[in-house]
């Protein structure tokens, strides 16, 4: 019963009922109109014929007097059919015709009457029911009366047939409509139930669940597809969040543990003031590193969540390439690395100048670290800013060891770092931040092989981030 109740409460079923009612009413109106019109048409036909006959008969009467009229009427009355005739005297005595048992007074009213009657040949048979007829009484000169009419049985029969047909068709409409409605409703309900079931499991924490798509491309499918895209996004965000917390746990817990261990060790073993001082100094150093890591993580999280979009305006990426190159050139030089900037043509782009500078600085910083690691003397780093179609590219190429191809994709993913990079100085979140900044601008960070070395590219849409929909 609850299943049925649920069925009746669905929107589809309610809609079916509304449509059914509207359609039923329409059908009833149509058929009623048809029936009434048919009836009126038949009545009109009857009156026309009767009028014509009366005109004809009164002509006969005018020419041949009552005798001729009686003969003609008598002849006509004998023909089978639904035509009715009666000629009476002034007193009401029948002279000719095939009608009897008229209610009294019928003949006294000239004009049209609908009346009960019996046919003369059935007058004595009591089991014959009375018929109904539409008659016209006509006063003839000389006191005679002429009655001409038509039996209405045929009209009534037709009327009843139409009425019966109407009733049946309405009944069939209702039955079929209800059945169809139930069928459609149950189908929809089954799909909605399946969706509800899936959402319930998703609500219980299984974010991997997806709504069933029937493949019919109808509105429910479209809804399911959109919801699935949304679920996909939510799952990705949740995964990101989990990675963030895992990484925060790793990135902050490791130095925190180190911090704690050192302090503990100092308490246990330090004897002289100098030893305590050294322990305190390393504590401050370690906490500075912690704060730096924390800031980098916070910044990545902010960029990932789209903050910083408000502060976007047009600037020249080539200028940034020069600025960042100039900032790092002495550092590179000190490590025996040639740092060159090739950005001679302006590359205007809409974005957050500060964040993009930082992203580029991180790439350069990264390259300086690794270019030095492998081959200090012959290292070379080139920073470029180019316009390529609708994008601007900020590239940093180095002659370092590069990143193994298998790891390149992972490195750009949010918060994924290569194991070996965790041991490098700095927060080690540089590439993640650069990637987050690129994504914030609707662009991407691409790492490629420079043969040898690493080519890191920040590709940004020139017009700034396009708000993605759906």
């Amino acid at each position, binding site marked *: 019963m609850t299943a049925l109740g649920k069925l009746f409460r669905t929107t589809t079923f309610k809609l079916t009922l509304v449509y059914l009612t509207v359609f039923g009413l329409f059908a009833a109106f149509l058929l009623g109109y048809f029936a009434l019109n048919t009836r009126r048409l038949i009545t009109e036909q009857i009156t026309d014929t009767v009028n014509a006959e009366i005109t004809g008969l009164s002509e006969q009467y005018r020419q041949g007097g009552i005798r001729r009229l009686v003969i003609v009427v008598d002849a006509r009355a004998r023909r089978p059919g639904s035509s009715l005739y009666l000629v009476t005297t002034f007193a009401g005595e029948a002279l000719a015709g095939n009608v009897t048992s008229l209610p009294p007074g019928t003949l006294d009213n000239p004009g049209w009457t609908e009346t009960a009657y019996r046919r003369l040949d059935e007058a004595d048979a009591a089991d014959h029911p009375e018929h109904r007829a539409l008659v016209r009484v006509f006063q003839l000169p000389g006191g005679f009366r002429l009655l001409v009419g038509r039996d209405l049985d045929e009209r009534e029969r037709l009327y009843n047939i139409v009425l019966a047909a109407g009733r049946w068709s309405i009944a069939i409409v209702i039955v079929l409509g209800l059945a169809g409605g139930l069928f459609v409703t149950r189908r929809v309900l089954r799909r909605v139930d399946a969706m509800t079931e899936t959402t319930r499991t998703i609500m219980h924490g299984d974010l991997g669940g997806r709504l069933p798509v029937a493949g019919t491309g109808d509105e429910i499918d479209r809804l399911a597809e959109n919801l699935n895209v949304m679920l996909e996004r939510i799952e990705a965000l949740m995964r990101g969040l989990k990675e963030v917390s895992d990484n925060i746990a790793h990135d902050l817990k490791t130095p925190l543990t180190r911090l704690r261990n050192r302090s503990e060790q100092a308490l246990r073993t330090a004897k002289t003031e100098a030893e305590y001082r050294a322990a305190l100094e390393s504590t401050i150093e370690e906490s500075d590193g912690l704060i730096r890591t924390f*800031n*980098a993580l*916070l*910044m990545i999280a902010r960029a990932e969540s789209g903050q910083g979009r408000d502060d976007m305006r047009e600037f020249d990426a080539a200028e940034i390439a020069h600025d960042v190159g*100039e900032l790092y050139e002495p550092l590179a030089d000190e490590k025996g690395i040639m740092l060159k900037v090739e950005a001679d043509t302006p590359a205007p782009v809409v974005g957050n100048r500060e964040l993009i500078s930082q992203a580029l600085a991180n790439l350069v910083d990264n390259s300086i670290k690794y270019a030095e690691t492998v081959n200090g003397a012959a290292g070379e780093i080139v920073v470029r800013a180019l316009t390529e179609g609708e994008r601007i590219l900020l590239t940093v190429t180095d002659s370092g060891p590069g990143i193994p191809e298998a790891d390149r994709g992972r490195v750009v993913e949010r918060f994924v770092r290569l194991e070996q990079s965790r041991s490098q100085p700095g927060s080690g979140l540089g590439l993640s931040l650069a990637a987050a900044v690129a994504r914030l601008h609707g662009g991407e960070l691409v790492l490629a092989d420079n043969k040898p070395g690493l080519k890191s590219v920040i590709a940004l849409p020139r017009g700034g981030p396009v708000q993605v929909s759906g």
Partner: protein
Amino acid sequence: MPTFADINGQRPFGRVADTQPDRVNMRLLVIEDDRDAADYLVKAFREVGHVADAAIDGDDGLAMAIDGQYDVLIVDRMLPKRDGLSLIGALRAKGIETPCLILSALGQVDDRVKGLRAGGDDYLPKPYSFSELLARVEVLARRRVGRSEETVLRVGDLELDRLSHQVRRGNEEISLQPREFRLLEYLMQHAGQVVTRTMLLENVWDYHFDPQTNVIDVHISRLRSKIDKGFSQPLLHTIRGAGYMIRDGAR
């Protein structure tokens, strides 16, 4: 982004004081609702010879700032009763132009811009190192005296002409890259004051992020090799654990 001055092997407060012979005592007001942090700051400022008071909410802070003749206010952004930005706004509305340094746990660029727009003169995200705070407060206090209008800056026998972009030491002309010129200009504007790496990054490069590796040190050592190399008296000094200072060592 802040950098956190490396306090390597230095007594942070004592050493800063030692290397600043021309320090003047300042009257400072710390408006900070965290009593521990406020006490720490007041104590630290007193240790280096300044006069410091503390207020623990926005209303008290405002009243004290209006009455007291302070040189610099150190204002926490989030305060009970009246937040830091509205406090600064109220002060400025009264025509009180005491320099304000905003301390905030919100370190992002947009928060910083908001703080400066509200009338703050400098912005330091928490957590900060005291040497960074001290250097910035001292720069703020001197800003009024200001050397920013002078067209020729002089420290010892070093001379920087801001109009002709010429630098000379003694009789020798020194050629500098444009950025080196800006760097030296900033240092000389604040001659005798500690200038931190973050301050240099913000004011000379207009960057507010942490460049991870200490690129500033390398720029300084390049500049140093141009202005100090071959001269008996070095002018550009590294203040360990804090930053840099240009001053005439002969004084």
